Every structure is written in C-alpha cells, then in structure tokens.
C-alpha cells in the first residue's frame, strides 16, 4: 500500500468518536424524518438525538481520562481544553433538545397557530448539527477546520431561528442573523487570511511560531490588523458590544429552546474560538524592544474596552425592555462582557475561571429560558407582565425562576456569584481596577431589571382563580437539574473547581502533539 494512504489510516480516528456519534445520530434522524409519514409525531426523533448526545458525552469523558491526541498533524486536537468545552456544548444541546420536545408537544407554543413549526424533524436534528459544528470548533487547531466548524454551527443556527415561518419577528430576526453572521464570517476570514499571509501556514501552532518572525521582521502593524479583525469577528459571534445589535431581534424571534441554544452553546463556542485562536496564535508574541509579551501588555486594553462596553450597554439597555426574551438578550450581551474580563486580564487561571462561569451560565440561563418558555406558552405573551402573580399560581416555578435570576445577577449562595467573584479577582489580580469597578457597578445595575421580573412574580397579583402553569416532564427535568446545579455550584464550588484544576489539564492546548 502507498505510504500516504497508510498514514491516513494510522491516525487515531477513534478520538473523533464523539463527533462521529453526533453526526451519525443527526444523519439517522434526517433519514427517519424523510421516511416517516407526514402526519406522524416527530418527537421520538428527539429521544434518538438525546441518546446520541449521552453516548457522545460518555466518549468525551473517556477522552478526558486519556492522553491528549491529534489527527493529521495537529489539525484536529483532542486535548482537555476541547473536551471541557465539548461537555458544556453537549449539556447545553441536551437541555435545548428537551425544551424543544415540549415546544412542539401538546399545548406547546410551536404546536399550532401563528408560531407553529411544521418542520419538526429539522427542529431536532439541526440542534445536533449545530452542536457538531461547535464541537469541531473546540477541537480544531487549523484555520480551515476552525472556519468549517464555525460555519456548520452558524448555518444550523440561521435555519433554527427561521423555523417559525409564519411568525414575522422570527423572519426578521433570522434575516438579520444571516446578514450579520455573514459579515462576521467575512471579517473573521479576512483576519485569518492575514495570519496565513504572514506565516504561510494554517496550523495554529505554526502560526504562533511564524507570527514572532513576522513581528520582528517589520510586519508588526499587520499582526495588529489580524488581531483586530479576529477580535471583531469573534465579538459578533459572542454578541459583545459594539457588535451585539443582532442579538435582541434574534433572541426574540427564535423559538425559546433555540434562543437558549444560541445563548449557551453558540456563545460558549464563540469563547472556545476566542481562546483557541487568539491564545495559540498570539500568546507567544513579544515586543522585540523590551521583550514584554504583546498580548498581555498592549492588546488586552482593547479586549478590556470591548468587555466594558458590553457590560455597560447590555446592562443599561436591558433596563428599558418589556419583552422578557429581549431582556435576556441584553443580559446575555452583558454576560459576554463579564466573560471577556478574564481574557483581558489573562492570568494563568483564565481557563478555569472562564469555564466555571460558562458552566454556571449554562445552568442559570437554561433554567431561566425553561421557565420563560412555560410562562410564555401559558399566557400567550412574552411580556414582563406575563409573570404577574406567578408565585400564587405556581410557587415552585416562581421560586426556581427567582433562583436563576439571582444567580444571573450574581448574588451570593448561587453559582453566578462564585463565577463572577473569580472573574472579579482576575481583574483585580492584574490591577485592572477600572474593569473590576465597571463589572461591580453594572452588576448592581443589572439587579434592577432582574428584580423587575421577581417583583412581578411575587408582588403583583394575576387574575383570580387562575390554574397553575402546567409543567411538562421534559421542561421540569431541565428546571430541576439547572436549579440543583445552580445551588450546588453556589454552596459547594470546591469539587467543581478541583475538577477544573486537576482533571482538566488546559495547558495541553499549547503542547505541539505532532512529532
């Protein structure tokens, strides 16, 4: 057999097993959806998808235990950085899938009427293909694979947002998302072209090596140009200010499970892209005059500015929102700002800080959207007033929502507080007091709009004699798991932090695996 062919088969393709399982599940769901008669219930497909996600999660966990490995000369890396992000994606997609089942089930918003979703098979398997793109993104260490993963995620998201075809805000949101996403992709790609032009390689580790030479040989300003283009492209993806304008319309127009998917999985994928791309390519870069590292000493000011702008704009504009999903969109813009803080301050703890906050954010956001979905379908409105008197009608639901909102606001004894506390410490540790101050002040501002929802639930009375909100078991599972995790991570964060510090070896990311 030929030498080159033998090499292709020699790579450890088994490391890609989680992705292959997801791809297989999505393909199988597509085929079954095509074969099933038109009127048949499509919800069993979702259970198939969920089974695929569970198997994939098990396989990822097995990869965490194993040594880091790579496929095709560091083109695809299965290191603990990728595995940690993949677990977050899988959990987020599983929750979104559970919410989607209830969305098209009896009494669900998407089951009939103007907001009906007719393409229910697509609803389920596009969540899986989006997940596949995110997982590829986390593992890719090559500009081309990175971009393919990014686009698989983005294209799936565009269609998911547009699923409620008869509902005008959905069409508007989807169109804005396609246009903005296209611009973001183009800008990212343009930035990548500079990296390739300066270094002659698409492999991120080789790019990191090559950029040093490019910087020294007088192309310093092109290195800056590449950095800024990439930051702008990623900022679109994570909905950070000033590139956040698509988020409110998309979040409002998309079905609530898809909104939750975008807020958690898509955003986490953006942060995986940010860390993998920018850290691998730019971290080794030093100023030749005084030897100070470039990313630490010069460029983080600009990332800090984006973070500050996101926190300020997100939290202040959220004050004026009356639609709960729009409010959550601005809240998620603010959270993108919080999550950028450790990247701006860039300590060695950046991975565990960001990962802990992402996990906390996963649970509190998923839980909040689950409650929003139930209340919106019960009242037929996403207005803030739909929450009036929820405590009287469904006390447990109101208490769970309160917990999620307190966690999002970052009050003590919740996961959000611990997460935000670590982000705050990272800024203070590197003496970025302005950023730390903005973080605390905008968090205080955010109490106002989170408490507006809580006030509606507890202090306003709804109509008399209203029956309680019916909680389907799937959504109930999501709420219960999210609430338990939010409390547990808030009261006993140590086991989770230990896990992040010891089991996940994030520095594997910088280790060249190809010999």
């Amino acid at each position, binding site marked *: *057999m*030929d030498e080159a*062919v033998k090499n*292709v*088969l020699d790579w450890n393709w088994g490391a890609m097993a989680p992705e292959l399982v997801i791809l297989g599940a999505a*393909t199988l769901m*597509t*085929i079954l959806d*095509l074969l099933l008669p038109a009127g048949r219930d499509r919800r069993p497909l979702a259970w198939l998808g969920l089974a695929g996600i569970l198997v994939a999660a098990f396989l990822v966990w097995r990869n965490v235990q194993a040594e880091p490995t790579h496929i095709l000369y560091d083109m695809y890396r299965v290191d603990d950085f990728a595995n940690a992000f993949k677990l977050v994606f899988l959990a987020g997609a599983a929750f979104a899938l559970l919410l989607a089942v209830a969305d098209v089930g009896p009494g669900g918003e998407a089951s009939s009427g103007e907001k009906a979703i007719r393409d229910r098979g697509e609803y389920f398997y596009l969540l899986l293909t989006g997940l596949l793109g995110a997982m590829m993104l986390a593992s890719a260490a090559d500009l081309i694979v990175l971009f393919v993963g990014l686009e698989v995620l983005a294209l799936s998201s565009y269609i998911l947002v547009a699923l409620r075809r008869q509902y005008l805000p959905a069409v508007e949101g989807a169109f804005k998302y396609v246009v903005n996403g296209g611009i973001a992709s183009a800008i990212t790609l343009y930035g990548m072209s500079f990296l390739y032009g300066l270094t002659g390689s698409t492999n991120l580790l080789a790019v990191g090596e090559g950029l040093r030479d490019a910087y020294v*040989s*007088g*192309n310093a300003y*092109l290195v800056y140009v590449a950095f800024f283009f990439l930051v702008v492209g990623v900022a679109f993806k994570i909905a950070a200010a000033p590139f956040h304008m698509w988020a409110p319309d998309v979040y409002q127009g998309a079905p609530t499970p898809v909104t939750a998917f975008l807020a958690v999985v898509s955003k986490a994928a953006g942060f995986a892209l940010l860390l993998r791309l920018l850290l691998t390519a730019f971290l080794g870069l030093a100023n030749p005059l005084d030897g100070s590292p470039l990313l630490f000493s010069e460029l983080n000011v600009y990332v800090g500015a984006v973070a500050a702008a996101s926190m300020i704009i997100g939290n202040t504009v959220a004050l004026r929102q009356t639609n709960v999903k729009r409010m959550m969109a601005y809240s998620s813009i603010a959270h993108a700002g919080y999550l950028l803080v450790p990247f701006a301050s860039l300590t060695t703890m950046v991975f565990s800080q960001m990962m802990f906050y992402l996990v906390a954010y996963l649970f509190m956001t998923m839980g909040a959207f689950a409650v929003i979905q139930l209340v919106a379908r019960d009242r037929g409105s996403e207005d803030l007033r739909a929450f009036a008197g929820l405590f009287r009608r469904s006390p447990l639901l109101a208490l769970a929502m309160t917990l999620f909102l307190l966690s999002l606001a970052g009050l003590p004894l919740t996961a959000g507080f611990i997460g935000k506390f670590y982000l705050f410490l990272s800024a203070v540790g590197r003496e970025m007091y302005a950023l730390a101050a903005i973080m605390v002040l905008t968090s205080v501002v955010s109490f106002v709009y989170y408490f507006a929802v809580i006030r509606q639930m507890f202090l306003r009375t709804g109509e008399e004699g209203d029956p309680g909100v019916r909680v389907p078991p799937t959504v109930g599972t999501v709420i219960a798991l999210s609430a338990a995790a939010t409390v547990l991570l808030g009261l006993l964060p140590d086991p989770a932090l230990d896990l992040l510090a010891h089991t996940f070896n994030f520095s594997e990311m910088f280790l060249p695996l190809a010999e």
Partner: protein
Amino acid sequence: MIEYINNYVLVSIFVLLGLLLPVAALTLGRFLRPHRPTPEKGKPYESGVEPTGSSWVRYNVRYYLFALLFVIFDVETVFLYPWAVAYNQLGLFALVEVLIFIALLLIGLVYAWKKKVLTWT
C-alpha cells in the same frame, strides 16, 4: 516589509492593465469601425428575444432552488474527478470516503425530493 509592499505594486499594475486593455480596445474600435446605426443594432441583446415590458418581474423561487441543487452536484464532480484520476493510488480508504460523501449528498437529494423541490407547480 519592502518585499510585501512590492507585491501590492504588482497587483496594482495588474489592475491598471486590466482597466487599460478594454478601454484601449473599445477606443481603437471606435476609430477603426464604420458608423452606420440601425434600430435593430441599438437593441440590447437578449438571446434573440424581443425585450418588452418592465424589468421588474417576479421570478419564480424554484429557479433558485434548482440552481442550488445543481451547484451541489457540480461541486460533487469537482471532488470526484481527482479521486477517479488517482483511484489506483488511493485504494480502499478513499473509496469508502467517497461513498460516504456521495451517500450524504444523496440524502440531500432525497430531502429536496421529499420537500417537493423537484416538482414544478
């Protein structure tokens, strides 16, 4: 650095040449050719069809879908051709890979078929 900028000089020379050639050709033609206009010659060329009516007509979206499907299978050939040429060197692994590739595209075709993209009404 200088080398890098030199490459842009080359690009700009190409752009200038690209602009110059058609302009020069058309100007030269204008001076060399006889000038005898008739109404038929003044008409825009539209595949021999008499152009009438407004250009703001509704286009059937199905044209677009057919074009999309065509592009997919067009690209498929682009991928299959080099594989077929190097078939003897690539062996079984590439065959399996190509079969997976074609199977995924076929699912796409069946999808379009089931969603009634291929029927024209």
